């Protein structure tokens, strides 16, 4: 105890940050096979340090592993927010709402599954698919008849979603009895409630949770994204509060007795392993980077830079905002699913609106518009606040823990005053760097190049 713990937790912060840097660096290598090998090694390192015992306990004990899982899920949430705020410029405080939605959705699916009820999976899966199809279909129609006011669009989508939800429930009622016997009961689990089938269900649950969060964000974002930035922030904060209220009343207002409302949902299988956390972390990072470094990503950033100019450049601003909001929420939903199956217990208080400032703090800390900053900041923040600070205060007597939230804001203030642009500013590491295009050597200047005008002529007709 004591100083050694503080020292080791300091070392752990540095090690984790170095690990993150190494992962991003190796992903940035040009050869595909080197990348794959790098990912596998990165996975293996942690798997080793949590498995191999040295002197009675693993190098990374359960405490550190817990922090790692929390950091992974929080990274997804924060990356989603960085996409919405850092890259798209929409000041959102609603990220924790989607985080919570993802957590509860995924937890409900797996909880019911291991308790011999397949309805959770079927209803959510079919609901997610039907709502998705409905949204795509309705979008086509609405785009064809242009000039439909936002409120009308919202009403149509809302009605469509409700209908789709009803259909999904009926599908679930129809199919579930066929599968339920295979699941057994909670005391005598059947074949499908264990082993590999359970892992598959878990995977589906994560995906469903993410998509469900994304679809919710579509419905909510449609009217609200037309508001100006700070107003949007307050509206999304409201969303977090409302989602929290619904969680508190999930067994009274909402028909989910297994969620137990404010008493907290227990008995969620702890399915999150390092494998899943790592896979989804890498997946989220890669997907987000691929979006950012594409034409769609550039339009997302253009909306942040200048909305009016973006419109004039042919960018569908409303659409772009919606897409980034949805993708951001998707990430939050996935993060929530990972979190729920790590902690095994969901309490609405976890998704309290006061805690919903956390991802914002992390994103600003790391640097708006810097993915590396967000990732590094999340790991650093988690290991600092829950690791180092806990060890530090633990050694300072019985009264010290009350100082925790006094030291934390002071640190926050100091960092912000010293580096208001965030720790990394807009710098990116390795893999996440924008590959700069070198000016090609071309002797003739201002002499009309043959390609561009021909192309633009074609476009005219």
């Amino acid at each position, binding site marked *: 105890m004591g100083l050694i713990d503080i020292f080791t937790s300091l070392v752990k912060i540095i090690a984790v940050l170095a690990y993150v840097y190494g992962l991003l660096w190796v992903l940035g290598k040009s050869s595909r096979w080197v990348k794959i090998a790098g990912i596998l090694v990165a996975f293996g390192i942690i798997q080793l340090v949590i498995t191999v015992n040295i002197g009675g306990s693993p190098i990374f004990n359960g405490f550190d592993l817990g922090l790692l899982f929390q950091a992974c899920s929080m990274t997804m949430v924060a990356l989603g927010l960085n996409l919405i705020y850092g890259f798209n410029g929409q000041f959102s405080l609603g990220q924790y709402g989607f985080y919570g939605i993802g957590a509860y959705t995924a937890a409900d699916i797996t909880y019911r599954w291991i308790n011999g009820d397949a309805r959770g999976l079927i209803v959510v899966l079919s609901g997610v698919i039907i709502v998705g199809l409905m949204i795509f279909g309705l979008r086509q129609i609405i785009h064809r008849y*242009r*000039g439909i006011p936002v409120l009308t669009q919202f009403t149509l989508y809302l009605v469509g979603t409700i209908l789709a939800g009803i259909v999904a429930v009926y599908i679930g009622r129809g199919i579930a009895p066929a599968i339920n016997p295979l699941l057994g009961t909670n005391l005598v689990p059947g074949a499908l409630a264990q082993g590999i089938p359970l892992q598959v269900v878990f995977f589906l649950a994560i995906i469903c949770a993410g998509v469900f969060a994304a679809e919710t964000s579509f419905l909510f974002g449609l009217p609200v994204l037309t508001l100006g930035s700070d107003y949007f922030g307050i509206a999304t904060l409201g969303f977090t509060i409302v989602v929290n209220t619904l969680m508190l009343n999930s067994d009274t207002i909402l028909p989910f007795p297994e969620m137990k409302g404010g008493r907290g949902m227990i008995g969620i299988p702890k399915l999150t392993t390092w494998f899943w956390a790592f896979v989804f972390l890498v997946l989220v990072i890669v*997907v987000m980077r*691929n*979006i950012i*470094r*594409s*034409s*769609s*990503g*550039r*339009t997302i*950033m*253009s909306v942040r*830079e*200048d909305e*009016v*100019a*973006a*419109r*004039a*450049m*042919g*960018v*569908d*601003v*409303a659409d772009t905002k919606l*897409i980034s909001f949805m993708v951001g929420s998707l990430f939050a939903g996935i993060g929530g699913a990972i979190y729920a199956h790590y902690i095994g217990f969901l309490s609405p208080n976890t998704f309290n609106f006061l805690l919903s400032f956390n991802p914002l703090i992390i994103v600003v800390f790391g640097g708006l*518009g810097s993915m590396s900053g967000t990732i590094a900041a999340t790991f650093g923040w988690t290991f600092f606040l829950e690791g180092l600070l806990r060890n530090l205060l633990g050694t300072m007597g019985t009264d010290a823990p009350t100082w925790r939230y006094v030291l934390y804001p002071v640190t926050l203030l100091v960092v912000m005053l010293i580096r208001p642009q965030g720790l990394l500013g*807009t710098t990116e590491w390795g893999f996440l760097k924008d590959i*700069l*295009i070198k*000016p*090609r050597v*071309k002797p003739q*200047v*201002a002499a*009309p*190049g043959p*390609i*561009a*005008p021909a*192309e*633009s*002529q*074609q*476009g*005219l*007709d």
Partner: protein
Amino acid sequence: METTPIQTEPVLTITGLTKFFGGLRAVHNFDLTIQPGQLLGLIGPNGAGKTTIFNMITGLYVPSGGEICFLGETILGQEPFEITRAGIGRTFQNIRLFPNLSVLDNVRIAYHPRAGYSMFDAIFRNSKYEAKERELTEQAQDFLAIFNLENIQNELAKNLPYGEQRRVEIARALACNPQLLLLDEPAAGMNPREIVQLMELIHFVRDRFKLTILLIEHQMRVVMGICEHITVMDFGEVIARGTPKEIQDNPKVIEAYLGKGAAHAA
């Protein structure tokens, strides 16, 4: 395609355009017809409603009344991005580049509607994405080369000097592949040397891309020098139309606008 067969159909027809801001009448009963290939100037004192007209053509403002037809079809009620994609590009009075993006990205954003791949292609980085993205980037680079901006393509737009920002903005507007280009005071804040270059650029661009151009400008040298036809506005209404010569001699224009200073400016 080069020899556009229908010469008679105007590119842009505006009839009875009116706009109120609250109780304030910014534009009243504005009519305008632009023939293909024309270079038309729109002048008038500050607050005459010129930029408001631009904003209505590009869909940023919704008119209180009137009709705007582009290539024979109404564009009223369309979103700004739809209008741009239909073929109307514009620049802004106070330059509106994307300051924290590189010059190349500024131009590539204009290519977005024609990128040829979806976000899903981008997420999976499939061969379609690779090919189209490379093609798009090369196009954008070639395009920048025309404007002599190629060697600054990786600079952030905010770090460029003023004149280059103007050029980038015009290039970006042209990258939208417009048939009609709206230039809002392109010469604002330029010195005489730069203005001469700008006039050459505008001529060059028009011939190169077979464009129709509508221009708002305060610098009489520019307007009188390059426009074939001029419309003069005051208090939201048209007070004169004609060739530069006719306008310079029009007593109504001199009284409302040019004043004795016209002698200085010329």
